[in-house]
């Protein structure tokens, strides 16, 4: 139980006294204020200048608790295609959800109405997008509204939580997420908060929801007042943290704003939790607006904690984080978030390392184990993952009953994460087609080593025993950083003052950290350390180096024996210095000092620089990774020197070869390497025979690919644009001779009769009575090409 707060803040909002999850007011009941929202307020953080929007069925913008903080720029009506997100009112009050979520984030404080939002000074907007057909376009548009203006998008919806649905974002929505984290908030990345599923009663598993299971969303679950699992809660490995919500008999509930300017105590489910976290993140961003989308996830990992939350699967991973499939890293802590945020140093760039075991189909009888040993892509500095963040397993599984499967992943450190539990209601035979399961349970662990995927198949109902499931392929996708994301505070303190943003209150003392700075190290140094010693055991603890010093980030240097790719060895200063952008090896830092280039770039041998497109006369030689010269006769070539795509003057292209241009009536004979005469019917040609004509000689007509003196039967002669002589065109179908295009037949093939200058099959209909023929005539079917053979002759002959 948390110590009772000294209730320094009091608001006149009528439901304030009932907001047990924010403050203690009743000494006879337990305090459940461990989310530490009040202490964060007391430090001065209330969400000022932070913009949150709710993706839902709209928000009541004139609600007295929302009007003050309502922000039109953070709002849009995707369903109605206008700027007003007001919900559609109906007798059943179907569209209450967005307004309820919005109040939790940013209901105004001290206005004598209803409640107080977690970030009661934040801007709040609403994206109305659930009141209509929700398509990939609707979702993608909603996630991309004002990405540079909106900081936090909170969504409390998803695919059906019925225990049998496997569904996630479509291609556009996936792109919208990616664009959001890459470009949103002017490059810091949009923050997407998502409610994990409510399908607990249906045995659902939130790994089957591609939104909550995405690395781009912060997936939030719920706990009851006493720390029990609410009846609705789903388990899964992508949940990162938890808040209080309602969900157990005789326990207190959550208050919020309701439609028609009302208040409610009826809001429940994980929809309560996502907006609470969105509010807490708003406080955190107020403490440090420079946090990236990944910084926010790191902060949640580091500050959320299990407390009294009851789950039988709490475990400590190899990085020391306590984590559960019900609650992620535990209950959020607003005060810890703002305090950490103030002194936070942006984590190193995200790297992604993918690895796939040898591709062959494996049958899943009762269980199947498949392992991969990975170096975390240490061979490629751009992909190297040493310290883990999200881990994704993409599987292609064929299975007669999907719900019978359970999947676990075991990290090299021995941590086991359940990616999927059995789902009793899921009888689908679709299997998992490139479905991505995500886990945050290995956060902070090291990537290198043996990873094991365990698949268990336990039939819950009789199944045909001879039909086995198959694991066709799987890919391990590791996300993380190549270096420790958390530098010792002393280093940060000295070097990263840019990111330290003191809060509105006084800067806090950090006695523990100051003590840490004074500690002395007496152990052995790394073998690359020089004569001045070290202050720790690793290569980045050296005070000077034997060989070269490599800067891995602004504040992180390590000693190395050789400089890695992308660097050159400056022997004077004994430092690894960066090559020019795009160089893999170089002798200096300028663009013209490259010796070889990174993948996708080619060395221009004339300028010693790396370029992505070779100049004319050169081709991109993938083998030598340089621009090599095309054959002398080629003006341009593709992939090989002699594979020409354009020729120099005096040469013309024959296939992919440039050959000397020959005079009219001759062609270049490739075997004899000389100009030879065309067939007498050709003016120009590509070979000696009459089928090789390009243009016909005087007095000849072009018919198909030959030059003829007169058109063959079934052809008629006509002028053609761009051709000096006439051409022979084919008559209409079944004509033996004709006067021109269309219905101009003069003679028909055998088995056809000439009717109205068109050739109609001789066959007669046995059902062509008068009425039928009247229908054929009145609809003028015989004039329509598609119906021409439709008893026309019979009807014509019958008059």
């Amino acid at each position, binding site marked *: 139980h948390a110590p009772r707060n000294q209730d320094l803040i009091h608001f006149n909002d009528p439901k304030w006294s009932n907001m047990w999850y924010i403050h203690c007011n009743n000494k006879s009941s337990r305090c459940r204020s461990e989310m530490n929202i009040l202490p964060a307020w007391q430090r001065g953080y209330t969400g000022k200048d932070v913009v949150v929007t709710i993706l839902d069925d709209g928000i009541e913008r004139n609600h007295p608790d929302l009007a003050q903080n309502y922000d039109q720029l953070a709002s849009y009506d995707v369903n109605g295609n206008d700027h007003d997100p007001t919900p559609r009112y109906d007798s059943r009050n179907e569209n209450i959800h967005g307004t309820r979520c919005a109040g939790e984030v940013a209901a105004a404080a001290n206005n004598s109405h209803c409640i107080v939002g977690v970030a009661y000074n934040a801007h709040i907007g609403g994206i109305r997008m659930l009141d209509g057909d*929700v398509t990939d376009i609707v979702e993608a548009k909603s996630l991309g509204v004002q990405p540079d203006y909106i900081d936090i998008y909170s969504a409390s919806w998803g695919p059906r939580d019925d225990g049998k649905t496997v569904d996630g974002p479509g291609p556009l929505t996936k792109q919208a997420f990616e664009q959001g984290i890459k470009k949103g908030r002017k490059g810091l990345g949009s923050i997407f908060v998502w409610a994990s599923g409510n399908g607990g009663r249906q045995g659902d598993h939130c790994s089957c929801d591609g939104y909550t299971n995405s690395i781009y969303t912060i997936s939030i679950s719920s706990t009851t007042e006493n720390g029990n699992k609410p009846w609705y809660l789903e388990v899964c490995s992508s949940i990162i943290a938890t808040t209080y919500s309602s969900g157990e008999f005789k326990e207190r509930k959550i208050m919020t704003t309701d439609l028609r300017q009302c208040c409610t105590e009826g809001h429940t489910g994980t929809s309560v939790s996502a907006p609470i976290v969105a509010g807490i993140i708003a406080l955190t961003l107020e403490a440090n607006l420079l946090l990236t989308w990944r910084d926010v996830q790191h902060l949640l990992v580091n500050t959320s904690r299990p407390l009294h939350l009851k789950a039988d699967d709490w475990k400590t991973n190899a990085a020391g984080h306590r984590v559960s499939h019900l609650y992620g890293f535990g209950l959020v802590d607003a005060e810890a978030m703002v305090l950490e945020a103030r002194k936070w140093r942006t984590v190193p760039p995200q790297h992604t390392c993918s690895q796939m075991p040898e591709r062959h189909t494996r049958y899943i009888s009762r269980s199947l184990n498949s392992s991969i040993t990975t170096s975390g892509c240490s061979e490629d500095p751009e992909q190297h993952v040493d310290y883990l963040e999200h881990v994704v397993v993409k599987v292609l599984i064929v299975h007669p009953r999907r719900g019978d499967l359970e999947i676990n992943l075991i990290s090299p450190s021995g941590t086991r994460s359940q990616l999927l539990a059995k789902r009793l209601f899921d009888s689908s035979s679709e299997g998992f087609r490139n479905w991505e399961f995500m886990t945050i349970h290995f956060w902070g662990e090291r990537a290198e080593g043996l990873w094991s995927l365990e698949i268990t198949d336990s039939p819950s109902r009789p199944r045909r025993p001879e039909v086995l499931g198959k694991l066709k392929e799987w890919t391990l996708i590791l996300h993380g950083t190549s270096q420790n994301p958390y530098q010792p505070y002393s280093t940060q303190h000295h070097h990263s003052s840019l990111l330290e943003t003191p809060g509105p209150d006084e800067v806090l003392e950090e006695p523990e950290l100051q003590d840490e700075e004074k500690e002395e190290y007496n152990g052995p140094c790394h073998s690359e350390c020089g004569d001045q010693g070290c202050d720790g055991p690793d290569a980045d603890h050296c005070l000077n180096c034997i060989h070269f010093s490599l800067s891995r980030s602004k504040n992180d240097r390590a000693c190395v024996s050789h400089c890695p790719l992308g660097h050159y060895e400056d022997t004077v200063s004994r430092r690894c210095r960066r090559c020019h952008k795009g160089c893999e090896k170089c002798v200096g830092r300028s663009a013209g000092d490259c010796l070889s280039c990174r993948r996708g770039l080619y060395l221009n041998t004339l300028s010693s620089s790396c370029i992505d497109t070779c100049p004319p006369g050169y081709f991109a030689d993938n083998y030598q990774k340089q621009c090599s010269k095309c054959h002398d006769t080629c003006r341009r070539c593709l992939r090989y020197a002699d594979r020409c795509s354009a020729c120099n003057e005096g040469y013309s292209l024959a296939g992919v070869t440039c050959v000397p241009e020959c005079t009219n009536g001759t062609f270049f004979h490739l075997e004899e390497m000389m100009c030879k005469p065309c067939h007498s019917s050709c003016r120009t040609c590509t070979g000696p025979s009459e089928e090789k004509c390009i243009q016909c000689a005087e007095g000849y007509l072009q018919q198909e690919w030959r030059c003829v003196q007169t058109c063959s039967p079934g052809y008629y002669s006509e002028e053609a644009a761009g051709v000096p002589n006439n051409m022979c065109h084919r008559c209409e179908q079944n004509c033996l001779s004709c006067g021109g295009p269309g219905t101009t037949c003069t003679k028909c093939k055998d088995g056809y009769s000439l009717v109205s200058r068109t050739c109609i099959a001789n066959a007669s209909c046995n059902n062509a009575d008068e009425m039928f023929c009247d229908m054929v005539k009145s609809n003028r079917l015989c004039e329509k090409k598609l119906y021409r053979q439709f008893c026309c002759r019979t009807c014509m002959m019958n008059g």
Partner: protein
Amino acid sequence: ATGHGHVYTNHWAVRITGGAEQADKVAAKYGYRNLGQIGSLEDHYHFYHSRVVRRATFSLKGPHSFIHMDPMVDWAQQQVAKPRVKR
């Protein structure tokens, strides 16, 4: 295409390079209305066809379907209504 329980709408997502003018031209060619770029996704446009059934269990074919074969169109997808549940 068979339904698989899907509901096909008369909205399309289309990727066309060459800007909004080009997208307008392609839309007009097959009887669509270009409702503009999809959020912040460059080259992705929201097309709407008023003469296609608003909600159908089959992807109905017609002259509008030729848009999928147009050389100016990199990718086009008829939009399916996705069941989404408030939590």
